[in-house]
């Protein structure tokens, strides 16, 4: 694509001369590097509650962020106005911090290499609202039809289309058009006068509307949410204390995101503040574990054709057969450590400085069948679904909260237990993985990752795995 035919070229008349001028201003006080991030974001969302489409929102935001790097210093400024005066002012502001003897000239801009992972012809947000509103209605009808104990259904459909232009002082120029759509449903079920229990379903990705008419139809999400809520009606207290833990396939991959993913982001490692700092080449997990962060999977929520610094995303091997292979790097950490960016520089929007972030993080399948894994456990807990998690990357402690779990007794799933938080220490917990299933599954496409105040969409995945020891934070004493 050429600049003149790109979104920002055609709609806002941005020319190569403009970009050169802004970059020159950004480098004007002396610096090693500068980049511009133009973003136009249109979003819409439609919400249903009590079987009424109660509210719907749409809107647009537009802006440009200017970043200047000198050594380890970063200056950043942004403008929500694309007039040349405002952009030049932002560039001058960002340049102030650099103020370095370093002197680089801008290199003439060349379109960056990038993928074509989401060639959605018509983005969902460009389709008639009347078509999109049907999803929440169908979800509601299906959830209510699924079980008479369902007392509340809430559903939200949200989509967005982001146009991005990145231009860097070392000559990279990228354009991307990033569609996203997501359908969520939350239900409440109640047995007689008992305590109501919640269940969630949902999914999406960088997809077209047809995604929600096949196997990922609204009805499927609704039935899953109802199933989860109904299971909880019979759940008893979760155990407290150390236990063998079996994770089901798919969303429980959030384990990897928390236990190792964040700790392998290069900003922490460059500064030596991660429990994984300085451990490349060392064994940090059982040899059954190969963990990958892959931003190049078609249509996935965490995928990107090109990252937010004009570097193409990649399939990055983080851990191979238990050995730590590398970190996720952005432009700054690559420059400071003498490596190349792994295409992991991401930001929430033009108001934020990019950081190394995950995309789709998963573990490769192993040799065991899921049945064998469950059969191997005399007493333990099987976690099929999780809510969120969190990690302290410095000491390595991480948690994730189970939303669907069952006791395993004598190799069989016996009864459901209530939600509980599991806690472990990243490098230790990964060593305790003693069986890996042959059933790798990626999540449904609803993940959001937060770091330093910035949220970005991500994906996770895992096959069934057995962890020999983790602390389960229930209330039932053995």
């Amino acid at each position: 694509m050429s600049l003149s035919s790109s979104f920002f070229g055609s709609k806002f008349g941005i020319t190569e001369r403009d970009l050169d001028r802004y970059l020159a201003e950004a480098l004007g006080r002396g610096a090693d590097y500068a980049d511009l991030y133009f973003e136009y974001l249109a979003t819409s969302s439609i919400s249903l509650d009590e079987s009424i489409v109660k509210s719907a929102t749409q809107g647009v935001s537009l802006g440009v962020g200017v970043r200047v790097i000198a050594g380890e210093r970063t200056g950043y400024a942004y403008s929500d106005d694309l007039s040349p005066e405002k952009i030049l002012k932002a560039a001058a502001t960002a340049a102030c911090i650099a103020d370095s003897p370093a002197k680089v000239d801008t290199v003439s801009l060349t379109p960056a290499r990038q993928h074509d992972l989401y060639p959605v012809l018509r983005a969902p947000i460009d389709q008639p609202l009347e078509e999109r509103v049907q999803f929440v209605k169908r979800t509601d009808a299906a959830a209510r039809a699924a079980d008479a104990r369902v007392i509340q259904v809430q559903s939200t459909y949200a989509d967005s289309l982001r146009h991005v232009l990145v231009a860097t002082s070392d000559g990279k120029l990228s354009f991307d058009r990033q569609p996203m759509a997501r359908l969520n449903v939350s239900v409440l079920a109640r047995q007689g006068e008992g305590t109501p229990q919640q269940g969630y379903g949902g999914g999406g990705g960088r997809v077209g509307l047809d995604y929600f008419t096949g196997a990922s139809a609204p009805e499927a999400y609704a039935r899953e949410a109802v199933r989860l809520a109904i299971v909880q009606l019979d759940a008893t207290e979760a155990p407290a204390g150390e236990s063998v833990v079996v994770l089901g396939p798919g969303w429980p991959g959030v384990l990897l995101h928390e236990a190792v993913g964040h700790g392998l982001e290069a900003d922490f490692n460059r500064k030596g503040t991660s429990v994984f700092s300085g451990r490349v080449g060392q064994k940090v997990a059982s040899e059954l574990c190969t963990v990958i962060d892959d931003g190049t999977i078609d249509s996935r929520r965490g995928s990107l054709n090109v990252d937010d610094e004009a570097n193409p995303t990649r399939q990055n091997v983080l851990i191979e057969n238990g050995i730590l292979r590398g970190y996720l790097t952005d432009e700054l950490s690559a420059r400071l450590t003498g490596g190349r960016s792994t295409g992991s520089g991401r930001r929430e929007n033009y108001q934020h400085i990019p950081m190394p972030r995950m995309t789709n993080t998963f573990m490769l399948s192993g040799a065991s069948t899921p049945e064998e894994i469950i059969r191997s456990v005399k007493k333990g807990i099987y976690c099929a679904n999780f809510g969120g998690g969190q990690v302290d990357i410095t000491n390595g402690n991480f948690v994730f909260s189970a939303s669907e779990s069952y006791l395993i007794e004598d190799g069989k799933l016996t009864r459901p237990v209530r939600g509980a938080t599991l806690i472990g220490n990243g490098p230790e917990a990964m060593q305790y993985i003693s069986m890996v299933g042959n059933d790798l599954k990626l999540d449904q496409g609803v993940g959001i990752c937060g770091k330093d105040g910035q949220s970005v969409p991500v994906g996770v995945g895992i096959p069934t795995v057995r962890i020999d020891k983790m602390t389960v934070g229930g209330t039932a004493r053995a």
Partner: protein
Amino acid sequence: MTEQQLRSAAVSAVEQALALGATGAECTIASGSEFSVTVRLGEVEKLKEADSCGAGLRVLLGQRQGSSYTSDLSAEGIRQMVTSAIEIARITEADPYAGLPEADELGQLTQDLGLASELTLSTAEKIDWAKRAEKAALSADARLTNSDGASFDSHTGVRVFANSRGFAGSYHSTYCSLSAVPVAKSDERMERDYWFSIGRDHTRLESPEQIGRRAAERVLRRLGARKIATQTATVVFEPRTARSLVGHVFAAVTGDAIYRKSSFLLDKIGQVVASPAVTIVDDPTLPGLFGSAPFDDEGVPGRRNLIIQNGVLQTYLLHTYTARKLGRKTTGNASRGLTGSPGTGHGNLYLEAGALPPEELLREVGNGLYVTELIGQGVNTVNGDYSRGASGIWIENGELTYPVTEVTVAGNLSEMLKNVLFIGNDLEFLGSTAAPTLAIGGMTVSGVQ
């Protein structure tokens, strides 16, 4: 844009919506400047400075409603926002309870809430303060070998609100904050922790040296942490962690949770839901604090609401919609960003201080876990299930002894509120939610075995 221009833009958006057939409309505009600098190991690492603005509009077409937002406050930007809101409202369905507050409910507090002050520190001074805080932290002990930096942040903003029932108001606010995040190492184990101070201007911040020293103390006391055995124990939440419990009570008393029957406090008004020592208040009228505002996000003046008094649940927190759903009046708790319909927010939400200094409270407790950090989201305010990752310090014979790590604390919020044994006298507002030290009996601490 000046405050007056922003108000005109909001009023104009409302008028344009009515002209296009809306039966009601309200517009929020936020405009502000942010500054942030982080220093690490004595050098500036990141500096960010920018102005931003945005507008949001909600329109009613009879009982249907839609909303839109934009970052473009030009006349054309506002015009497009109005058209967009009307367009999307047409796909929504009639909701008998949708609507704006009644005209006689609108208004604003007239006393000075002390929300804005002069931010007079220069960039060089802000950098210097951050450097001083980090230096004070790292020089406190030889085991403090690394740093995640120290930051000075400041913000000034103006918020404007206008609706089609004649309300137009605006207010300025400022804040600045200083934080330090040192990293300590011993026996190949690393820990980090932080301390921060926040104020409407820099004169109300703790000194950089004090922030650095407190951050250093917090991280040093984590070194050498061990796991402990699984047991039932009294858990003492220090103020920084206790405030999250008040947040869970808030989530359970919002009108939204109540009308959806998604709250462990459903149908409990007038009933004992907590220990008689527990009183929880929401008060947006307290001068200078971070949850104060002259009107809520629907143009209703804020007021003091007693949520739990001596253990008895007194009220839910409502905005216009949830009030109508529940056959009540709004409590002035509407809150919204620029997009979407109002949800429930709070002003200064706090648990009233007790009489015990924290040291005496620990002596009363005798043995238990003093929790200094909670991680994870394992809280379900529908059924009350509570299970979070924790680290802290073991209390033995009334004294803080060794640090504890990698445990969970679990219980059920209904029981935890009733099991509040002691309340400290150390209530301090470091944000819009606050609580003093709290001791809760009978919790499950999960660790080894």
